[in-house]
């Protein structure tokens, strides 16, 4: 068994057998039982899917892409020209990242990614999206008042910096390439990757400064 909370899911006839099971747990358990028993779902596939997205994919993948782009101008160029094959060079890609676009922040322009219509997000690059990214306030406000949204995330940009919002309305998926922080000249790629936060690749944050606690 690859994970912890599992034993409550594998008896055939779900029923209330303890206060730890919420009505939603019971409802989902019923659905799972039926779909598995009818042969539509292989329990091993279910386990593998959950394990993949719970433990394997995550923003560390995107951070590697960013760090590489910071140290390798050729990679950066390929990444901005056609992100999907460039990411594949370092083993990043897959479901939910089949058609990647990378938008580079500059002193003049800051990029911000949203999906107003649902929750599109580059899974293999950033993992599953956080609740706030999928929530009505973010989806509603990012396109109409992005500067106010950024301020709420503690990101204060100069007045002159333009804000470019990307609404993920098709199967393209977006990652922001943040600017490399000052004072990082001596850092190697792994140390740089450690400065790259998830939010800095959505556009709602900036990379950590070197020496700042993570």
């Amino acid at each position, binding site marked *: 068994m690859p994970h912890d*909370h599992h034993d409550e*899911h594998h008896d055939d*006839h*779900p029923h209330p057998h303890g206060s730890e099971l*919420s009505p939603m*747990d019971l*409802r*989902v358990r*019923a*659905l799972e039982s*039926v*779909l598995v028993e*009818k*042969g*539509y*779902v292989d*329990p091993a*596939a*279910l*386990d*593998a*899917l*959950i394990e*993949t*997205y719970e433990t394997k994919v995550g923003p560390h993948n995107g951070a590697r892409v960013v760090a590489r782009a910071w140290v390798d101008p050729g990679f950066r160029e390929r990444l901005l020209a056609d992100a999907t094959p460039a990411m594949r060079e370092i083993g990043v*890609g*897959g*479901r*939910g990242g*089949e*058609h990647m676009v990378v938008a580079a922040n500059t002193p003049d322009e800051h990029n911000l990614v949203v999906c*107003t*219509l*649902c*929750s599109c997000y580059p899974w293999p690059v950033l993992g*599953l999206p*956080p*609740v706030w990214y999928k*929530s*009505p*306030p973010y989806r*509603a*406000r990012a*396109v*109409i008042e*992005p*500067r106010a949204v950024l301020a*709420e*995330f503690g990101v204060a940009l100069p007045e002159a*910096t*333009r*804000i*470019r*919002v*990307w*609404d*993920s*309305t*098709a199967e*393209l998926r977006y990652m922001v390439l943040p600017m490399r922080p000052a004072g990082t000249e001596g850092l190697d790629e792994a140390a740089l990757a450690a400065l790259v936060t998830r939010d800095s690749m959505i556009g709602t944050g900036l990379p950590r400064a070197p020496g700042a606690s993570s």
Partner: protein
Amino acid sequence: MNGGQDLGGMQGFGPIAPEPNEPRFHAPWEKRVFGLAMAMGATGTWNLDASRAARESLPPGEYLTSSYYAIWLKALERQVKAHGLATADELATGTVSAPAAPVKRVLEGTEVAPLFARGFPSDRPVAAPARFAVGERVRALTINPPGHTRLPRYVRGRPGLVEAVHGGFIFPDTNARLAGEAPQWLYTVRFSGRDLWGEAAEPGHTVSVNAFESYLEPIP
């Protein structure tokens, strides 16, 4: 569909609520729903656009007051029932009482890693040449289809600039109703904040959306 999902530009939701050290899932059932939705999608009974359509067809009040994975769950239950894969009674009891229906394929445990690492590309060849070119001014059409569409309300009728031509992609509006992939040219169209929201828009603000060719018309 102008449903609860079409949120761009709405007001009154209050602040965004980031959660420090957010877990991947907030309850055991959430991860099961996630996995079940992926696994059932892999049976080929429906497609990703149909699943989006099922989620957004919850009544708007229910959509806006349901948690994210609760929306997934309700949509998945609807799809399973609508396609005859299980009955309401089976879902209520968790006990199988009707024979299984055939599905196109069943995802095996060993297939997950290679299939999901490869992904499921949505680009498709389109024979006709692209109607619009980078740099061209276009207008998002005023359309209000009762079914699934990926043209958000806030850009409809608004002028924008084509900034990228991406090739052919599956057209969600037909694909969602299982009426064919009918691929179309896909563009990135950039709109100014002022054109979208008026003179009080934040300065220097633009929004880019991905728009299918049939969502756009030339500006003469």
